[in-house]
């Protein structure tokens, strides 16, 4: 039996058109004897949100790190706006990363900096022409967007997990990226905070019209914020399509996962 649902777009067969922001082709990645990704192919177009679902340890976070160049694939390619990032020098990847925002699973805020300084960090390093007052205004604007204007002087350890994710989002948006990568944005949050983060992501999508890849195992969150979903299992994409297409699948793993 074919492991890929017939009704969905088959991985690797997505058209590589000019609207594609991220194209991952046949990605393989191993850590020692453990094969984490075994031929993953995905395409995300401008303004589109793709949710990557899968069990814990299925390689979802590794996929995001390959896309932003924090890890190198054993084989396969990642093209950002048509340009292959494999084999690029660190400085060249740096230029591409400026167009990408990354929200880490635990926000990864710099714990020696305040909330405000965390959001200002990318601006300080890449917007040298910006005056300090302009930078301050931009930081306040970003914090207002994510509803964190009140706690800008606090340290990351003094705010809740949900607030840390909001600040992480503000930092990810600081350089006005056109690709946003979100690693488990609702993991570890209570249902209300999760719903708030989902609403925030939807709002930011509408306002900024970015290509987004959301890695999650939260089906509700994926259904709420994504245009398309891809389900990973054992290092491969089992199925890719809309939530309805996934629901209609007769692949056993997909049915099990959606339960």
């Amino acid at each position: 039996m074919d492991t890929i649902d017939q009704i969905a777009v088959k991985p690797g067969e997505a058209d590589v058109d000019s609207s594609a922001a991220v194209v991952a082709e046949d990605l393989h990645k191993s850590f020692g004897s453990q094969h984490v990704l075994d031929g993953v192919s995905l395409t995300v177009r401008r303004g589109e949100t793709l949710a990557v679902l899968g069990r814990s340890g299925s390689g979802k976070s590794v996929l995001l790190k390959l896309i932003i160049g924090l890890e190198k694939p054993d084989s396969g390619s990642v093209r950002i706006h048509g340009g292959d990032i494999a084999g690029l020098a660190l400085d060249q990847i740096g230029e591409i990363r400026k167009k990408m925002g990354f929200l880490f699973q635990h926000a990864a805020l710099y714990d020696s900096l305040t909330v405000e300084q965390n959001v200002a960090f990318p601006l300080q390093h890449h917007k040298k022409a910006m005056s300090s007052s302009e930078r301050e205004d931009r930081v306040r604007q970003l914090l207002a967007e994510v509803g964190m204007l009140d706690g800008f002087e606090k340290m990351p350890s003094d705010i809740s997990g949900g607030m840390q994710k909001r600040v992480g989002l503000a930092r990810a948006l600081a350089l006005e990226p056109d690709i946003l990568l979100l690693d488990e944005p609702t993991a570890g949050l209570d249902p209300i905070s999760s719903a708030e983060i989902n609403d925030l992501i939807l709002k930011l999508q509408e306002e900024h019209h970015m290509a987004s890849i959301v890695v999650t195992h939260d089906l509700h969150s994926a259904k709420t914020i994504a245009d398309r979903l891809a389900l990973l299992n054992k290092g491969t994409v089992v199925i890719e399509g809309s939530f309805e297409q996934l629901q209609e699948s007769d692949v056993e793993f997909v049915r099990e996962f959606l339960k």
Partner: protein
Amino acid sequence: MIDAKPIAIADIDPSLIGRKTPFVPPTVSSAKGPIIESLEWFGDLGLFLWQVVRAAVTPPYEFRELFRQLDEIGSKSLPLVALAGAATGVVLSLEARYSLTRFGAKSLLPAAIVFSVIHETGPIITGLVVSGRVGAGIGAELASMKVTEQIDAIEASSVNPYRLLVAPRILVCILMLPLLTLGADLCGLVMGWAAQALVEPLSFHQFITSGFKGADFNDLLPPTFKTAVFGLIIGLIACFQGMRTKGGAEGVGRAATSSVVLSSLFVILADVVLVKLIIMFFP
């Protein structure tokens, strides 16, 4: 009595026969592991140093972080280094007084203290104290940043973590060790004199004049500047151990401990080589 029965072919688990991986006796694998691991460690350390040098010599330069580390590594280590230097001066004075009096060479006491402090005890005490305080601090800080993905976040923000985090720390260690050594030397000499003056009245001026009689810059500068090498070792090893950390809190603890242990060990080993070189080139 231990029954040392030799292993016969018949004793080997039949399930092992026919496996693709050849059976390796435990004694061979356990002897091979640490050697290969050590070689890999040195190889990785060399690559790490190359990355740091490349990042350090290309703009933009992280002056803000450099100044922050000057305070963190330099100023904040001074009280501890001064205290250790002072204690060493007192101990040297007490010990040397007892020994030299026994051999009828009490008049050499100031020179014995001065030469001991500036040649060896000042530099090595500074190296070991800094490797304990700063090595553990850098190792734990970077390891904690690594396991909480803060270093990945820096990279994802298009900022080179070698340039931002590693290069300033190593550079400050290289710059501050000789200055801290001078501080330790000064405190050691003052307290060495104080310990002697309490037993037998002697002015500080007399102590210094007598102690430095026959000394020249070769007695002070090479031993002081050799601590720049200690600084390189401490900064490099602590940053390396921190940046390659894996695991959670346990990994952070391991990084801090290994930073201190390895940097102290390499400081002592480097001292052996440097003392020999100084004697050869600055007789």
